[in-house]
């Protein structure tokens, strides 16, 4: 087969992965693809479904990648397959196929007990299910979950987050019976108990009973007890959706599912099945990794390849109710003669088990509860020799689990099937850091759990991960910050004499200038500090391509009076400055010569403006929407908070610029989630997001804390910013800093919410110092004749303006003349607008 009409039934995670995989192999589109989707929204990340209750929006869960030529029919489920005519029928019409891929997934299994049809009984499978649960939970008190497996515990957490007191009923004698053993389940239960979720193990639900209003009111259990329940979620497992195949006369697996061979083809050579609906050699797999593997196999086969299903990796690592749980390989010790090594620490509530071969040399599988840091190395070692002594491997920090001991065949990244050999080859080809390895091998680009192993493999290969700032300092910015802070050094000359070499450069000098400024060392142009500043900080304005500068006064929160707006207009007019509204709700005035800067500031400062720090690696702007004051949707005063935050953090020097925004409701008009710290109003307070970025590599900010009071919000932002300033690398935005942090967002929370490092008092004090010592850098220059002397065109001809800066006019405003551009450089051309041509 090499092309024709291809119909895909189903647009879940695996169905979408299949479309993407085929597109990658068949970019010219010899297959004309039609996707029939039952849900009325494109594919989304069902694995992260519960994140919906953490405030993650539908669009962020979206997986859909539009490809040219792919016809996506949303809300149009297939109703029948006619194999003789090679036609799929929907409620709307018929689709002919040369090849058909079934990706129908599975449905939630609902046990046959009375009452499952009552109002208030839900399954936990789709975004619609979750939205319905959320809506029904309003005003309810008690929830119950039938099923204590992975999905059941996720559902329990969701009910907890919705404010319901929660019971979990599990038929097996332990929680998560598929993934963990009895002892692991017991440890897990201790965590669950602590969260206030009540567990009922080894009992079945015998009936669901309605209350007087007709909605669900109680569960009856097999031990004769009854539980109150205003809302019930059934999470008792899944079953493959094979009805279409069954009706079409295709053979099924022994426990259901569309029977396919290792090439994922059914008994009909034109029909394939992928994902949870496929019974590969008779077995259905309910995890996404094996599903993706089937998608890749069929995509390969459809372009003439010979791929076969590599076998299912059922290893799982997840965080349930805040607890790390991992299970891999032969977790239950089913191999004959196998040996267990177990470790239980009730104090730290960590349980770990390794399953070894009968000679104790080969790792077969394992279970980890409470601490899964050893998981990446252990999972990669399954089937091979132990990478270290068992006790070292099971030590709570996984300290003994070093990827350097893995064999070349061990799979380092299971998401993208990358072995240690692949990584080593990439290192030999010159990949010298984690980003290079990610780009070259795709390892670590999906779930990211193997990134620590990539670092270890670089270490093992002897690739030095230099953290030296430049040739003058062997330490990183973070270490330099600590040296300056702890030793109380306040000059660059002392710092480089005691801790560096040479005379410094354009890399280390601004870093040290920023560190000194963050630690509160007076005006940035005082004494020796002046020689450290980049030209922008040196002139407190932004250098432009022609050698002129731009000026940005602070407009906190984007709120400005008409009087001040008029002053800006008058200044721009009088100094003939090009004027542009910025993306941060401010006004940028371009084309100022060095000697004009103090005159411009004088006018602005006299009218009540101050520096906007557009020139600094510092807080820039806190953008805001208009908020509840005017907006009929707003729930909080977003402008008021934005102004308060901007005034609190103005002038704060950081490793890189800092941007922020405040939205007054979930519609998010201020685009807060693209900021270093963004705040979105809720009915009861504020949600704080951190680590967002626009720019070169956009990143949505992560939800850090919810429903905060203004006071708590400000305390957390204080600490977030100060911890960032102390520990980030040079020119590392908060997005990269959060991503690179060992332990990620959880670690950040533990440091600045739980004070796990005992730093918070220090961070709070540092911010208090910043706030109390702030003064306007422009005004400070205007008040000081020595500083003012720097603002001259020529030291020997202060009255002669720089003759190289000349302007022409464009659209009614001055713009630089580019007469003295680089040889062969482009000249400015007028923009010509083409009109669309109408073809007849």
């Amino acid at each position, binding site marked *: 087969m090499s092309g024709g009409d291809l119909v895909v039934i189903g647009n879940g995670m695996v169905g979408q992965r299949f479309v993407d995989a085929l597109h990658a192999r068949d970019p010219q589109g010899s297959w004309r693809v039609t996707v029939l989707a039952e849900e009325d929204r494109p594919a989304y990340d069902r694995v992260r479904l519960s994140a919906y209750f953490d405030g993650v929006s539908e669009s962020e869960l979206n997986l859909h990648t539009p490809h040219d030529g792919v016809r996506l029919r949303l809300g149009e489920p297939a109703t029948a397959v006619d194999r003789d005519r090679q036609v799929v029928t929907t409620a709307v019409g018929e689709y002919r196929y040369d090849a058909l891929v079934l990706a129908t997934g599975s449905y939630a299994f609902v046990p046959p007990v009375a009452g499952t049809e009552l109002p208030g009984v839900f399954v936990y499978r789709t975004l619609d299910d979750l939205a319905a649960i959320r809506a029904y939970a309003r005003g309810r008190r008690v929830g119950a979950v039938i099923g204590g497996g992975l999905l059941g515990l996720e559902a329990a957490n969701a009910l907890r987050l919705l404010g319901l007191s929660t019971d979990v009923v599990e038929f097996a004698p332990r929680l998560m019976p598929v993934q963990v053993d009895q002892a692991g389940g017991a440890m897990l239960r201790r965590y669950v108990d602590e969260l206030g979720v009540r567990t009922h193990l080894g009992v079945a639900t015998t009936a669901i009973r309605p209350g007087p209003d007709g909605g669900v009111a109680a569960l009856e259990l097999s031990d004769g007890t009854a539980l109150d329940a205003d809302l019930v979620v059934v999470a008792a497992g899944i079953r493959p959706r094979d009805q279409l195949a069954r009706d079409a006369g295709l053979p099924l697996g022994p426990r259901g599912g569309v029977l396919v061979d290792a090439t994922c083809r059914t008994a009909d050579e034109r029909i394939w099945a992928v994902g949870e609906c496929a019974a590969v050699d008779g077995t259905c797999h309910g995890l996404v990794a094996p599903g993706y593997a089937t998608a890749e196999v069929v995509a390969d086969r459809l372009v003439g390849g010979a791929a076969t299903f590599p076998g299912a990796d059922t290893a799982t690592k997840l965080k349930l109710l805040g607890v790390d749980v991992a299970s891999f390989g032969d977790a239950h010790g089913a191999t004959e003669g196998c040996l267990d090594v177990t470790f239980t620490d009730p104090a730290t509530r960590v349980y770990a088990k390794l399953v070894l071969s009968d000679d104790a040399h080969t790792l077969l599988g394992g279970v980890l509860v409470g601490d899964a840091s050893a998981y990446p190395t252990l999972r990669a070692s399954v089937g091979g020799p132990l990478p270290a002594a068992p006790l070292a491997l099971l030590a709570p920090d996984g300290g003994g689990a070093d990827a350097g001991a893995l064999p070349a065949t061990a799979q380092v990244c299971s998401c993208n099937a990358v072995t240690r050999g692949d990584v080593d080859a990439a290192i030999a080809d010159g990949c010298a850091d984690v980003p290079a390895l990610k780009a070259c091998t795709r390892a670590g680009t999906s779930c990211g759990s193997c990134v620590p192993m990539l670092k270890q493999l670089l270490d093992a290969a002897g690739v030095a991960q230099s953290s030296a700032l430049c*040739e*003058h300092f062997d330490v990183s910015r973070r270490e330099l910050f600590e040296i300056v802070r702890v030793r109380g050094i306040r000059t660059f000359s002392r710092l480089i004499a005691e801790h560096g070499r*040479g*005379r*410094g*450069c*354009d890399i*280390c*000098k*601004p870093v040290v200038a920023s560190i000194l400024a963050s630690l509160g060392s007076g005006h940035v142009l005082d004494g*020796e500090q*002046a*020689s*450290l500043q*980049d*030209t922008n900080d*040196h*002139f407190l304005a932004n*250098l432009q*391509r*022609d*050698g002129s500068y731009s000026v940005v006064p602070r407009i906190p929160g984007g709120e400005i009076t008409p009087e001040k707006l008029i002053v800006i207009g008058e200044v721009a007019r009088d100094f003939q400055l090009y004027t542009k509204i910025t993306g941060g709700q401010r006004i940028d005035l371009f084309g100022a010569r060095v000697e004009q800067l103090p005159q411009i500031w004088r006018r602005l400062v006299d009218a009540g403006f101050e520096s906007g720090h557009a020139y600094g690696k510092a807080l820039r702007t806190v953008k805001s929407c208009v908020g509840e004051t005017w907006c009929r949707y707003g729930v909080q005063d977003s402008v008021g908070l934005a102004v308060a935050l901007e005034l609190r953090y103005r002038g704060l020097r950081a490793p890189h610029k800092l941007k922020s925004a405040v939205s007054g409701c979930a519609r998010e008009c201020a685009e807060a989630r693209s900021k270093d710290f963004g705040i979105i109003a809720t009915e009861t307070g504020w949600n704080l997001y951190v680590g967002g970025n626009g720019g070169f590599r956009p990143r949505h900010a992560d939800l850090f804390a919810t429903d905060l009071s203004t006071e708590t919000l400000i305390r957390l932002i204080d600490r977030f910013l100060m911890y960032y300033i102390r520990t980030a690398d040079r020119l590392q935005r908060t997005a990269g800093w959060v991503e690179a942090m060992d332990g990620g967002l959880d670690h950040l929370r533990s440091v600045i919410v739980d004070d796990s490092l005992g730093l918070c008092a220090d961070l709070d004090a540092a911010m208090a110092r910043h706030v109390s010592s702030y003064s306007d850098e422009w005004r400070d220059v205007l008040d000081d004749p020595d500083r003012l*002397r720097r603002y*001259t*065109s*020529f*030291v*020997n*001809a202060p009255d*002669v303006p*720089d003759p*190289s800066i000349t302007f022409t006019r464009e659209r009614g405003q001055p713009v630089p003349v580019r007469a*003295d*551009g*680089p040889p062969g*450089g482009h000249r400015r051309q007028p923009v010509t607008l083409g009109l669309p041509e109408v073809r007849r």
Partner: protein
Amino acid sequence: MNQTSTLDWTAVCALHRLEPDRGVAALVDGVQVALFRTADGLFAIDNRDPVSGAYVLSRGIVGSRSGAPTVASPLHKQVYDLRSGHCLDLPGVAVARHEARCRNGLVEVRLRQEG
């Protein structure tokens, strides 16, 4: 073959007007000169950044690379050896250098015209 001609010394400013490790611009016979005072002495080069064409080199950060005194263009950070004018990041790129000295507390510059 390059021809180099030198002109007369021009007094520019008092030495104390130059901050250590920072540059200023001076206008000498109509030529924009970037003048630097470093621990290695006084240096003068053309103020024009040969990469961008903008007259900004006097506003760059002064430092050292492998022992050589340097200035980095404030626009795109190419680094120049203050002694030779050679760009240390882009082979073949250089900036004209001039002579600078201090006499009786006055900084003097003498242009070199290389052509």
